[in-house]
């Protein structure tokens, strides 16, 4: 499993995300935001942080980085997973790779705590506990967009105790057709037992499980045979 972690100026969860990937034995590397080919990765992370200082609005300026065009191609080719966490989710929404937008929390505060979530996906327990840390995490979408989201079964995570005022308690979306996941909570902060939370492992395990269904792009002649493909072990 090969993971790429995009680094913008101001990204600060890149190292946590890389360590989380390495915990599962993945081959993970950083990608500077002017990269324009992502085809060798099974999963590309847009990690949390404050890309371009979050100036103007969270995610607004990052959408003009060359890597975002590469990411659009990557998603369109259904090459692998695109995972936007926190600031990454904000960037995905600004870029319109996911619908809706994230705005200032209802209580105007930066919220940093663990929160309970329900997950609309197989292989998760009923409730998981992930860390959140954001000032602009209130998910907003108009009625029509919400209907589309529901029709396409895109709601992935929902807050049990909505801390930021998100519509329909939405904490994360999953475009299952294009394999684009965006979420405000931080699964990469719930990997190591020392942190007191290991629920994030469910998410990484899900990526690993489902990436096996992707067409292989390795340079070896494996003919998509999982058993002999070195990149899948």
């Amino acid at each position, binding site marked *: 499993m090969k993971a790429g972690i995009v680094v913008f100026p101001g990204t600060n969860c890149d190292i946590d995300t890389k360590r989380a990937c390495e915990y599962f034995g993945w081959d993970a590397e950083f990608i500077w935001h002017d990269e324009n080919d992502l085809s060798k990765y099974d999963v590309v992370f847009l990690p949390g942080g404050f890309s371009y200082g979050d100036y*103007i609005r969270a995610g*607004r300026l990052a959408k*003009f980085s060359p890597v975002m065009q590469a990411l659009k191609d990557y998603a369109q080719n259904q090459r692998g997973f695109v995972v936007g966490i926190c600031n990454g989710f904000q960037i995905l929404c600004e870029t319109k790779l996911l619908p809706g*937008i994230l*705005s*200032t929390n209802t209580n*105007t505060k930066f919220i940093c705590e663990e929160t309970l979530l329900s997950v609309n996906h197989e292989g998760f327990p009923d409730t998981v506990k992930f860390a959140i840390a954001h000032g602009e995490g209130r998910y*907003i979408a*108009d009625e029509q967009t919400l209907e589309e989201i529901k029709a396409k079964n895109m709601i992935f995570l929902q807050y049990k105790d909505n801390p930021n005022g998100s519509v329909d308690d939405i904490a994360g979306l999953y475009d299952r057709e294009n394999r684009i996941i965006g979420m405000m909570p931080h699964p990469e902060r719930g990997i190591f037992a020392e942190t007191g939370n290991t629920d994030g492992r469910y998410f990484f395990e899900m990526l690993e499980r489902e990436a096996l269904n992707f067409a292989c792009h390795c340079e070896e002649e494996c003919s998509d045979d999982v058993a002999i493909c070195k990149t899948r072990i």
Partner: protein
Amino acid sequence: MKKYKADVVVTLKNGVRDPQGAAVDTVLRRTGMEEESEVQTGKFFILSISGDDETQAREKLNSICEEVLSNPVLETYKIERFTAV
């Protein structure tokens, strides 16, 4: 090539909750400075724009407003001033 200066104000769309505005309302009402307070917050940009003529410069400014300074899902923008330099 001509040069222009523009002032742009970006505010949240009607109906989008503005928590910062609401916080200022609370203060103004509590202190009695304005009992009917309805504050809307936004962002203010001063830009210099170049173009062959005003029409071209304005087109350029509109696309900057739509793509960079605001997001139509959430915000609206208003060009408050557009003058030749």
